[in-house]
């Protein structure tokens, strides 16, 4: 399976993600932000497909775009009040926030320019024909499965989160 037009798709999807991210943090209306985030998440699923990780892409579409964002939209519709759109959108300390983010950005640039030579080219590309089976082997297999315990803990965490969310949102416990 030979990839086609990789730079075009990478730049298209990454531009979608970055524009989506900028729209998330700048829109007044929370529903517009949510829709921009959905676009960014779907573009992220496309980037996962480019990285030969189809299972993570599928999980991203089902859980993130199809589950978490529906939850967000429900809550936005439940608690949306008209006057939030006309209020002040940014914090009192937005200048400090931007300065901190700029410092972090400078740190990133410094690290990445210094470490640019850490990733030499010439990798072998493996296909994705067995991706699901390989992920399942890592999770469940008897001999190679190193993540079985984490899997069980994650399911326990989800159970606790379900109970916690129900208890937090009830009117009277």
């Amino acid at each position, binding site marked *: 399976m030979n990839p086609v037009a990789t730079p075009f798709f990478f730049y298209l999807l990454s531009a979608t993600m970055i524009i989506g991210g900028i729209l998330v943090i700048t829109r007044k209306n929370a529903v517009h932000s949510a829709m921009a985030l959905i676009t960014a998440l779907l573009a992220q699923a496309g980037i996962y497909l480019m990285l030969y990780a189809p299972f993570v892409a599928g999980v991203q579409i089902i859980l993130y775009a199809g589950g978490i964002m529906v939850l967000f939209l429900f809550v936005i519709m439940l608690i949306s009040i008209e006057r939030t759109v006309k209020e*002040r959108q940014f914090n009192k300390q937005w200048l400090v926030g931007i300065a901190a983010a700029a410092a972090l950005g400078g740190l*990133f640039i410094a690290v990445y320019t210094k470490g640019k030579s850490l990733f030499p080219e010439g990798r072998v590309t493996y296909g994705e024909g067995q*991706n699901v089976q390989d992920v399942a082997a890592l*999770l469940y297999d008897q001999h190679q499965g190193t993540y079985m315990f984490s899997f069980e803990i994650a399911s326990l965490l989800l159970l606790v989160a379900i109970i916690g969310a129900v208890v*937090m949102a009830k009117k009277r416990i």
Partner: protein
Amino acid sequence: MESMLHISTLHYLVLGAALFLLGVIGVLTRRNVVIVLMSIELILNAVNLNLVALSRYWQGMPAYLGGGPGALHGQVFAIFVITDAAAEAAVGLGILIAFFRNKETVNIDEVNLLKW
């Protein structure tokens, strides 16, 4: 220009860093709680992107170093991060609803009952 056309691991890492920065700006500067939670989701996504990109890089490493076609540790970690993001979003929104029932506002700088 030549290096811009061949998409290497560094490209994905830079993209992840950019998304992380956008998420951090969103968390630090917005007043609306829901948008802060969505910026946290952006941060988690940036981390996932880094994990999956580096797992792809690690697949190309020789087997004696831990690489090879089945070395998808980054992808498994990314799946766990997505699961945890779902749990955290659910509980966070539950807290938000409980809080909104008390105070009728969604701005986090009005959460100042404990301020002296």
